[in-house]
């Protein structure tokens, strides 16, 4: 049926109004001769309106004479007629052609430039170099030579290891891969100071002057390896050091960027408590989702049940509204509400079980505060006694770890 309509549209069809004593006769005759008619309706005054393909109008005229009917063409539709109408409206046709032409012209320019893959280089830098090579916004596409742009970027920016320039429609994508350069060493004078409190276990100095030694207790911020190397002083050989005589300076004091490893024992604490009898409410995992549309205070439920099938529940609401434009807001919101079922529970534990659980929690907390690359030396737990009997087991976990506690701190000599 669709195909039939399409072909009719392509060939062109007319709507005709048949008047006469027996229009049915004309219809029968047309049908029997293989002329297809459609959308036959009776008009108020005894006539019949029907549609027929344009190439069947001529035979229909003969049949009308034979059946003593008269017909009149009401409207012409279909592609051939539209073309004929278009031929009369030259400005419209010209406008359409012009529109397509402008569209084609506009698509032959570069409108967007996207830079991808740059981390150290800024996009502006890359765009500047690309502009030198003749790739900028508004440049005709046929003038952009991707190879030249690529070569220019490689040549001008030594940080770029590889680059690819692609034209996709009106968008140009500059993809770069950067070289990773070795990190330059910081030469500013600096101390190594303690990042956290601890007991020094070993000090390994690469450069600088050690201030602490093994067994020392340090507090955060305390200088461990000083960046100030004191002057080496020595009295002249063969002479007794005399009071009042200044010793000879062999090497003057120097300022360096202190480097080294200071390992110290550090203690981490964690605390955990578990009630022996635990009561409360928790999620059962059952959820119910309701989607509704809110329009001017009225809420229309699209999906989901009207009544929530849970006794206790938590509500999670997500409101999506259309973006407002200037001071016009569209008063329609899509609301997705999720109901999570809650249920009462009660757990009774033996004191041992509670203790074990509390220990686990305390250790976990202590471990969470541990920094990475830390070696755990020892760990122990102890129960915290409050003196009075209560429905709670409190446990403290202590982890002893050995780690590098030094951090750099710049100073002005």
């Amino acid at each position, binding site marked *: *049926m669709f195909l*039939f309509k399409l072909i009719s549209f392509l060939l062109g069809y007319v709507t005709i109004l048949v008047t006469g004593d027996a*229009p*049915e006769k004309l*219809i*029968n005759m*047309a*049908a*029997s*001769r*293989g002329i*297809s*008619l*459609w*959308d*036959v*309706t*009776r008009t108020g005054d005894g006539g*019949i309106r*029907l549609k027929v393909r344009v190439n069947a109008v001529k035979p229909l005229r003969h049949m009308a004479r034979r059946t003593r009917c008269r017909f009149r063409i009401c409207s012409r539709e279909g592609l051939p007629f539209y073309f004929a109408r278009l031929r009369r409206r030259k400005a419209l046709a010209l406008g359409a052609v012009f529109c397509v032409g402008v569209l084609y012209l506009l698509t032959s320019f570069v409108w967007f430039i996207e830079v991808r893959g740059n981390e150290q280089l800024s996009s502006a830098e890359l765009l500047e170099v690309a502009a030198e090579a003749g790739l900028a916004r508004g440049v005709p596409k046929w003038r952009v030579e991707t190879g030249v742009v690529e070569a220019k970027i490689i040549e001008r920016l030594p940080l770029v290891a590889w680059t690819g320039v692609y034209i996709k429609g009106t968008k140009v994508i500059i993809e770069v891969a950067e070289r990773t350069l070795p990190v330059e060493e910081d030469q500013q004078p600096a101390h190594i100071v303690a990042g956290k409190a601890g007991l020094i276990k070993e000090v390994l100095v690469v450069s600088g002057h050690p201030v602490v030694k093994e067994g020392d207790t340090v507090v955060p911020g305390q200088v461990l390896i000083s960046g100030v190397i004191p002057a080496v002083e020595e009295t002249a050989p063969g002479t007794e050091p005399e009071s009042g005589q200044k010793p000879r300076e062999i090497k003057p004091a120097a300022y360096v960027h202190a480097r080294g490893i200071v390992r110290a024992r550090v203690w981490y604490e964690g605390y955990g408590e578990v009630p022996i009898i635990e009561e409360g409410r928790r999620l059962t995992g059952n959820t119910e989702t309701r989607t509704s549309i809110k329009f001017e205070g009225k809420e229309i439920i699209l999906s989901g049940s009207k009544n929530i099938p849970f006794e206790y529940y938590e509500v999670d609401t997500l409101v999506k509204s259309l973006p407002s434009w200037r001071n016009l807001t569209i008063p329609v919101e899509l609301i997705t509400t999720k109901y999570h079922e809650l249920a009462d529970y009660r757990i009774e534990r033996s004191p041992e079980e509670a203790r074990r659980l509390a220990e686990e929690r305390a250790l976990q907390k202590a471990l969470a505060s541990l920094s990475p690359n830390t070696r755990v030396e020892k760990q122990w737990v102890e129960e915290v006694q409050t003196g009075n009997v209560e429905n709670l087991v409190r446990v403290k976990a202590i982890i002893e770890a050995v780690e590098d506690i030094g951090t750099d701190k710049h100073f002005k000599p």
Partner: protein
Amino acid sequence: MAWQDVKKKVKRQISEILEIPGDVALDLPKIILFGNIQFYIENHRGILEYSPERVRVSVGEGEVLVEGENLILRNILPDELCVEGRIFSLRFD
């Protein structure tokens, strides 16, 4: 017309034995009704009367009468006919 009746009877029996559809062997119309909104007939012999309330279609023997309101002939082909509108009744005369 006795001879005609005998001929018809034989034809029907043969088509029943061979399971040939009636519209092929007996020249009967094939009618499809889509609810009360569309009436589709194949193998018709022409339209006898058409108005928005009544459509009479000639078939091999007799005629089919469709009554309703706002009836239009959606499509007319040499042996196909499609009527749309609100159909109230369908009768064989």
